[in-house]
């Protein structure tokens, strides 16, 4: 198990380094000059040149790459071009929104999707099954930002139960902070829940027809007992894969949902930073996201090994 984890971990570190290089290169060839963007079209060339020098934009690309990588090892992400504040501090300030948002959305999507999938599989072919799967199909098809808009129209504009957007800091009022995350996390979670429900249903239906369930039935277990004791655990393998992948989708989804609900999260920070060509801020935020996603992949791999003992004994791929 330890060897398995170690090999996986080294692979992830390499992925991270490659991601850093690609992010840097991709952003460096983007057209656009942050200094010109900050000073606008009436600025004199010497004012723009002065600002470029202040921001350290004149150094060669390789030098900037290594000072960025080197800085990250000691926790220094550099200074934002447009805001003049430490990038690490700006990102940290946004995690208080994005982490709870993704975690709540993740819990919601699993909490809604998995039971629906199990229910549909157990009542396969019934009216409930068809109805739930039609709903799930609809859920997959609806984009999260549009669904978010509908939620706002109902719960904020018409009923006025929840705020239409914005965020009250946790330190100021934790209940209001949580209330600001309810609608966005539902908007983020529901399409993912629909996918999970479909995957869970298919996996469980497959398992129900397998030999070991028949053997368990032959040993005298009822179908329910056999499915609960042997089926669900085996069906969890494909579901875990999807859950791991979904985390990446949820994180990407925050970029859109945080804009629709004007939440001060990491997704919105990246969105604004790209439009302002605050490249140093974009780079470091992207790396944090890459880290989060591959960290989840790592945990998913470990969870695999826990669910399926065969993976532990086999040499890691």
């Amino acid at each position, binding site marked *: 198990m330890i060897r398995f984890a170690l090999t996986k971990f080294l692979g992830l570190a390499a992925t991270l380094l490659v991601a850093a290089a690609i992010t840097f290169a991709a952003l460096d060839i*983007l*057209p*656009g*000059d942050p200094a*010109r*963007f*900050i*000073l*606008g*079209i*009436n*600025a*004199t060339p*010497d*004012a723009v040149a*002065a*600002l470029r020098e*202040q921001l350290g934009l004149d150094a060669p690309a390789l030098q900037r790459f290594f000072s960025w990588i080197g800085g990250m090892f000691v926790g220094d992400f550099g200074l934002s071009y*447009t*805001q*003049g*504040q430490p990038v690490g501090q*700006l990102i940290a*300030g*946004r995690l208080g929104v994005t982490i709870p948002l993704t975690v709540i959305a993740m819990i919601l999507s699993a909490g809604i999707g998995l039971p629906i999938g199990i229910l549909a599989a157990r009542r396969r072919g019934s009216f409930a099954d068809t109805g739930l799967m039609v709903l799930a199909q609809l859920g997959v098809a609806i984009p999260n930002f549009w669904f978010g*808009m509908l939620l*706002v*129209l109902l719960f*904020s*504009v*018409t*009923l*006025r*139960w929840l*705020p*239409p*957007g*914005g*965020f009250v*800091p946790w330190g100021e009022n934790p209940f209001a902070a949580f209330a600001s995350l309810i609608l966005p996390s539902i908007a983020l979670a529901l399409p993912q829940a629909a996918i999970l429900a479909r995957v869970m249903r298919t996996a469980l239906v497959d398992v129900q027809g397998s030999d070991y369930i028949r053997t368990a039935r032959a040993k005298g277990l009822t179908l329910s007992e056999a499915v609960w004791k042997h089926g669900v655990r085996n069906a969890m393998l494909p579901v875990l894969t999807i859950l791991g992948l979904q985390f990446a989708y949820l994180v990407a989804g925050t970029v859109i949902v945080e*804009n*629709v*609900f*004007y*939440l*001060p*999260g990491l997704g*919105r*920070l990246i*969105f*604004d930073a790209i*439009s*302002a*060509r*605050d490249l140093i801020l974009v780079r470091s935020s992207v790396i944090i996201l890459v880290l989060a996603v591959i960290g989840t992949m790592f945990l998913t791999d470990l969870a695999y090994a826990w669910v399926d003992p065969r993976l532990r004994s086999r040499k890691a791929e």
Partner: protein
Amino acid sequence: MALRTAVAAFALALSFVGIADAAPRTDLRIGLVLEPPALDPTAGAAAAIDEVVYQNVFEGLTRIDETGAVQPALASSWDVSADGLSYTFHLVEGATFHDGTTFDADDVVFTYGRITAADSVNAQKALYAGIDSVTAVNTSTVELKLKGPDGLFLFNVGRGDAVIVAPESAANNANTPIGTGPFKFVNWQKGADLTLEQYAGYWGTKPALTKVTYVFINDAAARVNALLAGSIDGINNTDASTLPVFKADPRFKVVVGSTEGETLLVQNNAKAPFSDLKVRQAIAHSLDRAEIIAGASSGYGTPIGSHFPPHSKDYVDLTGTYPYDLDAARKLLAEAGYPDGFSATLKLPPVPYATVGGQIVASQLAKVGIKLTQVNLDWNQWLTDVFTNKDYDLTIISHVEPFDIGIYADPNYYFGYNDPDFQAIMKQLNETTDEAARKELLIAAQKRLAEQAVNGYLFELAQTGVWSAKLEGMWQNAPVEGVVLSGIRWTE
């Protein structure tokens, strides 16, 4: 059924909460489309900076009022020498910065020294390049000497780019702005909102509002919802296409005014075929302004025939110079050697009036055989490709700077327009301070630009604000960038 009734009753009860307030509110929540990147108006061009701090947190020696006229601010009065080269400003007494330090002549000297310094990063440095010296005569008098007369100097002194900052705090103004204005900066939750509070030590008339929160809402639909849900009380300028919702709702008032934004179909005058006057005239004849305004700006905006705002006292209506006439356009194209028209690219920045307007312009020019390929760019690409590298045929953009007709006198500007006659008019204008003579020159300049059809002059951008019906005192027009709070109050 019972459940539905209960839900409806609950919703109804909730919607009545807050109606019983007795005294008028003194807090205000304003929606802003863009979040300012920083808060120092002397070191950045973003309009969002001025929307938060101009005349609210920071003040200049003069200020621009709602009509675009120059009014006293930190200078209560001034004397101008007969040759127009020396300005003596008499400063107000008792003004203090929000950190408690006193405002005096040294702050003025420091501020202007910072703007004109070699390493200055002021976005409008060129406007103040004519300053020769700034001296403190005594603590409440400052003398500014110019290298040459400048008819717009007092206006430029009143801009956000020249607000007075203190040597003790200037370095930190980007994140914790310290000015002399009626409101002091309190808190900025990056990515979400920013709060100002009334400054108790303000030297002038105290505003009615005590607390103002700016909420940054990038998404157009989210802005509509925020207004409808009452989570913000107004927006200074929002998408014209969303206005019908609010016009029909008695809880809101729609405030439509003008800006300094001349919206243009910019032509690369240095590049064929746009270097040919006949081609430019043909394009001018092919543009149907009414249709463009209806489509690109939901009908809000005033047609223009030259590069000048219609609300200015020096404006002359030149929309009839090349009236909409497709036959005339085809004839001119044939004379220019393009009987079947030609192909060109139209590079568009990411603003609705340009992306939508681009489609309309393309369909209008197609009628005379000019086939446009539309390319959508983001702001940075636009700044690099079009503005800096001049690598474009046509673009659509609104030039929002006040009094910016002088940009046509710069042959290196991205218009690529090099006209000695126009440059002579501008040179003369800069050296003239007499009002009547200036008016004559400004009219001559407008006419020259219209006749030369330098750009396709489309319309003056409108400012379309939506506010709670119970608010009053908002600026209708935008002669400068900013949302000036001092006159805003709740009526109940």
